[in-house]
């Protein structure tokens, strides 16, 4: 891949991620679901305080085993969207105000069908009157080429918290 091709691809990927953020922040949750591949893996580990030298092995809970904040598939995320859309999911009724910021975007791996993208996320949630939560962390997405657009095939969210400093994770990341 030439440098110019790589730059164009990066630009295309950035546009896609910003579009995705717009859909979420604009509360177009069903449209957002359409961006998710049927075999999606959506994973947010729990981070642990471990001794120096054990981080690779023990800091994060692992996808596919035990308990994490999220380790789920498209079915579950679809249920989450359906729940919000009932209008009686009180943890999101009235709806929170949310802004997703995405930065530090890098293409980590490029194949003819998939691109692995690293970025940072900053998600701000303001709820009802005085509730404020800021979720900051690192994200790795696997995006799959889907005609003129992309599908999210895998999303790993490394939230920079140990004890969760929020009462809920009722929003999408």
């Amino acid at each position: 891949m030439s440098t110019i091709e790589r730059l164009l691809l990066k630009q295309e990927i950035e546009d896609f991620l910003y579009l995705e953020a717009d859909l979420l922040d604009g509360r177009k949750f069903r449209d957002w679901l359409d961006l998710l591949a049927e075999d999606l893996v959506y994973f947010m580990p729990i981070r642990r305080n471990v001794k120096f030298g054990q981080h690779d092995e023990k800091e994060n809970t692992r996808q596919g085993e035990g308990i994490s904040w999220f380790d789920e598939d498209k079915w579950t995320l679809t249920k989450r969207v359906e729940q919000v859309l009932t209008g009686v999911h009180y943890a999101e009724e009235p709806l929170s105000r949310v802004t997703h910021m995405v930065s530090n975007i890098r293409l980590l791996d490029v194949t003819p069908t998939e691109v692995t993208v690293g970025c940072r996320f900053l998600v701000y949630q303001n709820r009802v009157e005085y509730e404020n939560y800021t979720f900051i962390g690192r994200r790795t997405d696997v995006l799959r080429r889907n005609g003129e657009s992309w599908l999210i095939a895998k999303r790993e969210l490394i939230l920079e918290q140990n004890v969760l400093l929020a009462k809920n994770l009722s929003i999408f990341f």
Partner: protein
Amino acid sequence: MTLPIDQLIDPQRGIISREIFVSPEFHKEELEKLFTRAWLFVGHVSQIPKPGDFYTSRMGEESVILCRDSRGEVHVFLNSCRHRGMKVCRYEQGNTSLFVCPYHSWSYTTDGKLQGVPLYRSLYEGVLNREEWSLVEVPRLHIYKGTVWASWDPEAPDFLTYLGGAVDHLDQVLDCRDGRPGGSEVIGVHKWVLPTNWKFAAENFLGDTYHNPSHRSVDMIGIGPSGEKGARRDNEYAKGQHVWVSFPQGHGMHSVWMPEEFGYQTTYAQYPEVDEYFRHCFEERKRRQGVKARLMPFTGNLFPNTSYHGRQPRGLCVWHPHGPTETEAWRFFLVDADAPAAVKDVLRRFYMRYSGPAGMTEQDDMENWLYATQSSMGTIARRYPFNYQASMGAYKTNDPIPGDVSMQITDQTPRNYYRVYARYLKGDGWDSLLGRDVAPMQAAAE
């Protein structure tokens, strides 16, 4: 300090002041008079299988270390150096031969003994007796079917006396699904902070089935293991008599008493292999436990702050006070240690989508508890007590199972809970805290 406890907590009339949920004075009294005495859940032996393994936990607002020493004995220590108070362990779990304080490097062996004191000879020789400066250890510790419990009160009754008849219900959480005693393991722990008083959460698990409407959204969409709309979990108890049970030690729960003849109802319908496993467990449990197998669990709260979910999902949740209007929740998820991997996988996925801050069911609980706390803080709000008058007097003692048993949704479990809570805050002796004056029940239990 003398708080007007009897004026503010009146379980006889079902009237309880909001002060106990918001006032710093009550919070302080709870820490001094309740959390220093009651038996508290600390952890599970599956978290510390090998000598030298440790897991840092909490008792009330204080950090403790659950540790298996080099000889295999289990201890619980206050996580604070005896010299200047620094936490001697800031890792969540691991294995060690020594806890070395980062501050001045005093070090303690895994049985809590002070071993290393830098410059001992020149600074302390003849004055400091190491034997007297071990890590502070809980005077009372009990391991029950893998779960570790501790009390700071040397005079506390033994754990099973403290549990009383609630043990039959706790067993339904801790025993293998096929009825073998114990055998569970912890597969993960959620920890999160929520701006609510810890008692809202404890009370919710005491058998507040009345709050079901707040889970309407998740029932509408259906997230249960059978994937059906209209349910957030499987209904395993269609033919059972729901019971809400109180015990004189303050424990309360919502369980089900099945009829004499009862059969397996399909659960986990999305996963035939898992359904078959639970069918097998169900039949084995009936065969092993006989009449006891008729008791099935929903939720409960063991006084003061350890709640459980018995089956779907299954685990223990400790509601640690974290200031008067903040709680730190630790939820320990349980499975049978020897369950097939496919079963464990389905269970953990269900637990995650149901429970805790990311759980579709419990998010709505957190919303309720937050705003119930916040809107009870005002000067005017605090003049108006909460109502606990549901099903006044509508229970029978030891019929059909031990305890004060209601056959309908009731506030009897929280009325009983706050009756005992008030006794702790008044500094009563253990006879009172165990409800030994609640004579008919005691006589029947003996």
